[in-house]
């Protein structure tokens, strides 16, 4: 196995780059952004950054972890090693920290830098306080009391019926709605009930629960036209769920659901993934085991 493919890939990239840098290529791609486009891009980016900064406590599991340095700087030997023999020149790649670039050495996971373990020989300040010997006993008593309370609570709640499961899910509210170029945030008290966008228009929605949700949740989308059957989708791309159950949807409308121009009501259903509908038939249940937020959408003709 030679480097021929990699060499051709490199040449192909170099050629394309030279062409684009010379301004050659499809005009719609290479024409520099005009003033309005630049302003739109910057406004959108900084609105998103501002919004994300406001919700720093929410860490979404999907969507961005690929850029986390923790993953980028994983030791090279995390990659499964080949079964095929490696000749002598193919030594193992360096261990973490060895032969790494200065850039990487400064990008070790923050967690590993911040965790300061207490060695067995170290003593905490509380060890020197009078009566500190009672602390372990007090701790044990409190732990037993907490366990009993949890057990009693669990016994009273189980088994849950469907309505109870819904009641267990807190209410959700939109905290951010972006449709096309318009951004609305709950902080501005300007979350709209109605938006307009083209099928390729970008839509970003943030839904936050009234209190943290620890159980897994998913999202389904139900689009209802003015007349006709609803469309039900379970979007796989563009949806992120935080550890606290907050939901962020970032996609084009088309990526979420294919809608013809006209008036639609978009319902976002948040609930346990296994209980969300996969099609219109799934909507025919008794008390819905999910929370629903609605947005009226006017889908404009493309272009």
């Amino acid at each position, binding site marked *: 196995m030679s480097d021929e*493919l990699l060499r051709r890939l490199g040449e192909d990239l170099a050629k*394309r780059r030279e062409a684009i840098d010379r301004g050659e290529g499809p005009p719609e791609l290479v024409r520099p952004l005009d003033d309005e486009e630049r302003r739109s*891009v910057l406004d959108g980016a900084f609105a998103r950054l501002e919004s994300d900064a406001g919700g720093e406590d929410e860490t979404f599991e999907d969507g961005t972890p690929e850029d986390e340095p923790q993953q980028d700087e994983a030791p090279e030997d995390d990659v499964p090693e080949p079964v095929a023999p490696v000749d002598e020149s193919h030594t193992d790649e360096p261990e973490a920290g060895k032969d790494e670039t200065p*850039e990487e050495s400064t990008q070790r996971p923050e967690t590993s830098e911040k965790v300061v373990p207490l060695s067995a020989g170290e003593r905490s300040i509380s060890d020197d306080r009078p009566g500190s010997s009672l602390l372990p006993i007090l701790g044990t008593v409190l732990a037993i009391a907490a366990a009993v309370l949890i057990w009693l609570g669990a016994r009273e709640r189980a088994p849950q019926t469907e309505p109870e499961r819904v009641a267990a899910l807190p209410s959700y509210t939109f905290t951010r709605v972006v449709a096309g170029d318009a951004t609305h945030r709950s902080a501005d008290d300007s979350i709209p009930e109605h938006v307009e966008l083209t099928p390729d228009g970008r839509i970003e929605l943030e839904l936050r629960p009234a209190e943290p949700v620890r159980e897994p949740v998913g999202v389904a989308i139900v689009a209802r036209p003015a007349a006709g059957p609803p469309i039900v989708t379970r979007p796989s791309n563009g949806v992120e769920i935080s550890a606290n159950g907050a939901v962020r949807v970032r996609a084009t409308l088309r990526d979420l659901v294919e809608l013809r121009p006209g008036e639609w009501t978009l319902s976002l259903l948040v609930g346990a993934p296994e209980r969300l509908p996969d099609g219109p038939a799934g909507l025919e249940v008794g008390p819905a085991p999910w929370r629903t937020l609605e947005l009226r959408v006017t889908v404009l003709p493309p272009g």
Partner: protein
Amino acid sequence: MEAALSGGAGPRRRLAERLLDAIQREVAIALHRSAARQGRDPRQEVQDLVQEVLVSLFEHDARELRRWDPTRGRSLESFVRLVARRRVARVLGQRRGNPWTEGAVELEEGPDEDGLEERLEHRAELGEVLQALHAQMSPRDVELFELLFVQGLEPGEVAEQMQMSRGAVNAWSYRMRKQARAAARHVVDAAGSDPPPAGRTR
């Protein structure tokens, strides 16, 4: 850059604006011949992806941007283009449902397919393979690929520049070679089973 990042919203925005053209060029390279852009408004697509890269650079108090180290000889624009290349590849890969962007890559050793390169080139799919590969790469992978296969430097020079041993560079090449071939097989398989170019036997 430090002054801009610590100077509040105005200086940050001016810094972001300065980077727009460099990012757009990388976006244009990725979108050119990309199957992922089919059926979309290309102008809107360019703006969306440029915005996506900007956010990835400036989020978490510009953590990604702060990785730039001018003492390593790379200009800020060049560094930003490296970041943009990876980011755009991942976004496009996710949009296509490309399993190569999910991180779990099956490096199964298949038969050494003669003519894989020609089949790809024949079908103008080298760009797709490169995109799949970039979506998998770490920042160091991107930099090594750039030096070895785009700029065509000798492994010894690359080892010195990247402060790695020659053996580590060789081992990286070996791993990347396998990933590239697996990505190529994925692209070829996904595109169907067109015959190889005329005159080529397998």
